[in-house]
């Protein structure tokens, strides 16, 4: 039996477009950087040329200066926000994946629990923040619960979807070889649900940061140990625009970093086998 069908053509296909591919790769990195630099330059020139005062629109230079001088106040706040974000995301991952696995075990469990999940999901979480503030011992706990609830549902619903969308013939195959429920879960359902889980992770990761900030706005923490949202509000009240922008930039970078990390995890897990992570070859 020959097994070499459909391999010989690859080498020839790779040779020709090497030159264009390299220049395309350079452009891919260069174009976004040039655009960003250009935007900052235009911003700086506008502020300088029009003479706009700092307390209305600070120039990029002012913002960077604020970032450096206010570093000692901003960093602890960033730490607080990050802590809430990651604690919430971790809890949401454990809770979402765990509950999803329980839900798909039996349709009765799903019927019994799903209404609660839906009710909690459709209620705007910010609206229950005041309630949480009364019930919880401190603001941090309330913030954590809000951020958790927001990140929890995309992870739960994606995971449930993933665990259910297993190839039926693969399920048959596992039955044929007498696989138990546990084997089926470990070797079939969980790997098959990875693309869905990772979608949930990317959405949940972004949302937990947003929720950590929004919840702090709603809950209104203050003083030491407060997060970046408080710094934003405080800077706004004091018309300290450079610091407000500096805090915003920190949040943006955090968001980008979370997006980068979750996207990298997705790539690392899926790039060998899943269509979404594989470069199209034609």
């Amino acid at each position, binding site marked *: 039996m020959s097994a070499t069908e459909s391999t010989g053509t690859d080498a020839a296909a790779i040779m020709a477009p090497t030159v264009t591919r390299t220049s395309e790769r350079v452009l891919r990195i260069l174009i976004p950087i040039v655009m960003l630099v250009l935007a900052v330059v235009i911003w700086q020139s506008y502020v300088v040329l029009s003479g706009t005062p700092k307390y209305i629109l600070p120039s990029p230079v002012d913002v960077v200066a604020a970032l450096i001088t206010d570093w000692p106040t901003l960093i602890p706040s960033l730490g607080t926000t990050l802590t809430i974000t990651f604690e919430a995301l971790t809890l949401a991952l454990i809770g979402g994946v765990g509950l999803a696995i329980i839900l798909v075990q039996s349709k009765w469990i799903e019927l019994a629990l799903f209404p609660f999940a839906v009710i909690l999901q459709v209620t705007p979480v910010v609206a229950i923040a005041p309630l949480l503030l009364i019930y919880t011992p401190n603001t941090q706990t309330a913030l954590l619960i809000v951020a958790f609830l927001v990140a929890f549902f995309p992870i739960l619903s994606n995971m449930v979807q993933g665990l259910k969308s297993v190839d039926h013939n693969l399920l*048959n195959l596992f039955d044929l070889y007498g696989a138990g429920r546990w084997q089926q879960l470990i070797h079939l359902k969980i790997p098959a649900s990875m693309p869905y889980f990772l979608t949930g992770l990317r959405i949940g990761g972004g949302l937990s940061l947003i929720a950590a900030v929004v919840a702090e706005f709603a809950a209104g923490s203050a003083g030491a140990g407060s997060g970046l949202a408080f710094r934003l509000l405080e800077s706004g009240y004091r018309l300290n625009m450079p610091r407000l922008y500096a805090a915003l930039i920190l949040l943006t970078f955090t968001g980008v970093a979370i997006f980068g990390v979750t996207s990298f995890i997705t790539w690392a897990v899926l790039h060998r*086998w*899943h269509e979404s992570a594989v470069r199209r070859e034609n």
Partner: protein
Amino acid sequence: MANVSKVFSNGTLALTNMSLTVQRGEFLSLLGPSGCGKSTALRIIAGLGAPSSGSIEWPSSTVNWKGLPEGDIGFVFQDPTLMPWATVFGNVYLPLKLQGLSKEAARPRIMETLATVGLADFADAYPRELSGGMKMRVSIARALVTKPKLLLMDEPFAALDEITRQKLNDDVLNLWRQSGITVIFVTHSVFESAYLSSRIVVMRARPGQVFTDLPLITSAVRDEEYRTSEEYRVSCATVSKALHDAIHAAEVR
């Protein structure tokens, strides 16, 4: 293995009182129009669904419909049905893994099985890197790795092109000849069944049951020469006629 017989009927009447005895070591094709219940019959033999009535008897003793130990049956689905996240090796390892065999203990058997289907060099490839025919070979290797006594194939090559299909037909024939395994092969192709089988069971629809049972003369070696021989032509004509009658019988009712 002998005396696999079953009698059953079910709600949607996919099969009605179908009886069939399979001899040990034969290559039996189940041929019939779509909707005649041939795949259903195969799945019931595999234990993938209980018959609503009737039973399947296995040679050792009279046991229930799920009487064969796991691993004694290999099943090849219409699609390759591979796990995309596992390598070729991982996919073929699956049945042994589910039996609790460690990867190292299973390795010689997996490599040996991959070699019989000509994929020894592709153990570390992922399914998406393989052609349709190669995926099907992996699927066959997975079915064979437990050294089953009975191999069930459900229109395995229906989605492949004619050339790949002929190649795989020859490969399956070789495997069958060398291993002495019993094969039940579901197909809707007259030519495929005439080429492969030592016996063809033609099924009819409404009610889904056995229409005719055609033992074929097996003396001829099935190879490229056989494909153009008079004997093959006659077999095809006979089978074609039987299939036509089976379809006609269902329409008249």
